[in-house]
């Protein structure tokens, strides 16, 4: 009983350890500090998205628009810097503001129309992607200045800048979800919305705020991604929303709402990164990698469901 409890509590971490051990045994070059940092850099964009997604899913919702927002924010930021001639700092702030605003609109639509969030965000996903293409005319925007590129490619000591941004966001979000009362409200809304409302929670306001935060974080991730690939590309982030949901679910976030932790969802993102990295080192192609990721998702969920049933 006790053993089972521990197993369940740390199941995501155990899965990560298993995957790491597997690749360490199977390859020579996987287990190295440099590769570890490399993996963290690779998952930084995904992890930032996962934070927003975890908030939304815990409250019982779903945000499919984050992948498109990644593309839009990269394009908008690049356009502001290169063509509008606005200073990089101001451009970044403006981009984040626009991203947040779009998220607020998404949130208001969900709350006012009373349509499931998965449907509204599916619509927004298409709208936002379309906007990204319109703004960029369908072509990537180059000539990003070096100080902005630094956000995606720079280092502080040995640590890449995106990793620092990711760690700050993950730890701050984890702290707020665990320790602030708003965090507690999120779990309540996802677990039992009516009880939360009767408990005095302004459910609608919080829901709007959540989609705003999710879009804002997608904006942050989008700017980092743009800096990393040195261009604002309208197609970037296509399909990322699914990777984000996958990471959250591998990290034990319940798709039914009410359950999940930021830190574990983050580990879920790292597991996906480790899989990509390790399989690539093993010379296993992208097509096979997709199959493996899908299987890991199903296994993680199956383990979670089965261990919950027994208890």
């Amino acid at each position: 009983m006790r053993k089972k409890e521990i197993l369940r509590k740390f199941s995501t971490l155990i899965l990560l350890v298993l995957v790491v051990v597997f690749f360490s045994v199977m390859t020579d070059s996987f287990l190295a500090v440099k590769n570890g940092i490399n993996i963290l850099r690779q998952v930084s964009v995904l992890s930032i998205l996962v934070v927003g997604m975890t908030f939304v899913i815990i409250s019982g919702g779903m945000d499919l628009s984050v992948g498109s927002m990644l593309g839009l924010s990269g394009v908008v930021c690049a356009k502001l810097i290169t063509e509008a001639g606005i200073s990089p700092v101001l451009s970044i702030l403006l981009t984040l503001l626009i991203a947040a605003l779009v998220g607020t609109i998404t949130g208001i639509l969900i709350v006012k129309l009373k349509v499931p969030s998965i449907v509204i965000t599916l619509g927004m996903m298409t709208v936002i992607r379309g906007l990204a293409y319109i703004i960029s005319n369908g072509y990537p925007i180059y000539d990003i200045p070096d100080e902005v590129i630094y956000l995606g490619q720079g280092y502080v000591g040995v640590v890449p800048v995106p990793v620092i941004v990711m760690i700050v966001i993950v730890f701050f979000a984890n702290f707020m979800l665990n320790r602030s009362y708003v965090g507690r409200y999120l779990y309540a809304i996802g677990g039992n919305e009516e009880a939360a409302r009767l408990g005095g929670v302004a459910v609608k306001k919080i829901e709007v705020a959540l989609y705003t935060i999710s879009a804002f974080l997608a904006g942050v991730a989008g700017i980092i991604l743009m800096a990393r690939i040195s261009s604002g590309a309208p197609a970037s982030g296509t399909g990322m929303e699914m990777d984000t949901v996958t990471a959250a679910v591998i990290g034990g976030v319940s798709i039914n709402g009410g359950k999940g932790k930021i830190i574990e969802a983050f580990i879920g993102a790292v597991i996906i990164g480790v899989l990509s990295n390790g399989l690539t080192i093993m010379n296993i192609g992208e097509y096979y990698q997709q199959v493996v990721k899908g299987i890991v998702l199903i296994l993680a969920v199956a383990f979670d469901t089965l261990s919950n049933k027994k208890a």
Partner: protein
Amino acid sequence: MNAVLRLVNVSKTYPGVKALADVSLKIYPGEVHALMGENGAGKSTLIKIISGAIEPDCGEIFFEEVVYSKMNPILSQKLGIGVIYQEFNLVPELSVAENIYLGKKVNKGALLNRNEMVSKAQKIIDEFGIDIDVRRPVKELTIAYQQLVEIAKTLTNDVKVLIMDEPTAPLTNRETEALFRIVARLKEQGIAIIYISHRMEEIFEISQKVSVLRDGKYVDTKKIEQTSREDLISLMVGRTLNEQFPTVEKTVGSEALRVEGLCTKELLRNISFTLHEGEILGFAGLVGAGRTETVRAIFGADPISAGRIFVDNREVKIDKPKTGIRNGIALIPEDRKHQGALLEMSIKDNISFISVADISRGTIIDRKKDRNLAVKYIDTLKIKTPDINQKVKNLSGGNQQKVVLAKSLASKSNIIIFDEPTRGIDVGAKQEIYALMNELVSQGMAIIMISSEMPELMGMSDRIVVMHEGKITGEVSKEEMSQEYILKLASGYKEEIK
């Protein structure tokens, strides 16, 4: 003539509750047999046993003189027992004909013979003397017509016993008349009808016999011409007050809450009453009378269409639960699982939930205060748990209810509304909740209590407001309280009494 359905010494026990004890009943063909009793008297359990939805612990069921120790849903259907539940089993998108023949064979080879199905269905509906095109989807019909489709559905089975559970509850007066004509027609065809209703007028209008259940026990069966309203009411409530209610000296203080002319769009009409500090005000009424709706509207859970609310003689505008809470009102909802407890969350997180913003610095919860609050209420309410971090879903019903109470008490309210606070919990926990309520009023708080258990309501309340179909039909002081009087008011007999 032999009885078509005969129950002999049927009993059913749920953990902690004797739902039915040794009930025997005879139902004859071509009669409308009314079944009456207060909420929780065992009517639902009885019909579930007849239809096979649940198994009796002991007793025998004779159907056309063949004995069965238990039914099951397929067998009961095959024998010709049909049930019209309060909630319909219709597929809204399908047509009337398709619904009537849902799951039944009207085949021509492997294909559905649509024409035959439509003409057969139309014939059944026409016999009702109503005008519905059976090719229309069910979702386009009114509730009353949907109910008739339900009835038609059971009739395709060559039904011999038709059970109707409060069929008129959702109907208007004219729709009710149409239903009664159909019931009369079915009766002439020799079908036995078991008719459950709270409405006295109906019982006297359509039934030939009436059987009364009380506390899971069979009380009596009367021919309708040999009984009266008063007779039936006393049969229904005739138990003695065997529960012990702690009596306390109360000092009723100043006015805590005044409601004037409260209306809602759906149900409530002109609800007015006052509540004082140190007082327990009871709300009596049948299911659907509007008691829960009243307290929900006052708390801010449902919108108000008209009326004024005064807290401590100050008019307040309450449009959401948050403002209700801010004005010192706490609601302990009737539906514990869906509205009260946060089952997936810990006891600690539940207890501090409403007041959590008050024990936070900025938005960060003060963990020590959070813990202390939980420990304090686990102690005062004697919540049995090894750990404050235990998930609420792992607790027993009584302890869950205490957690819900603690959540509201911790919010430091002065007006506390208990909606069916003792439903589904055992006797010991009930006593604890009574004691707690008395403790709260002795501290000067004002309590509203809704309960469908008369002895409990009369034992605890200082005054009782009685409701019927969204209106207040009377207010009863401690001296005037009697079950007969309250039940009369609850049945809507305002004028006859005073």
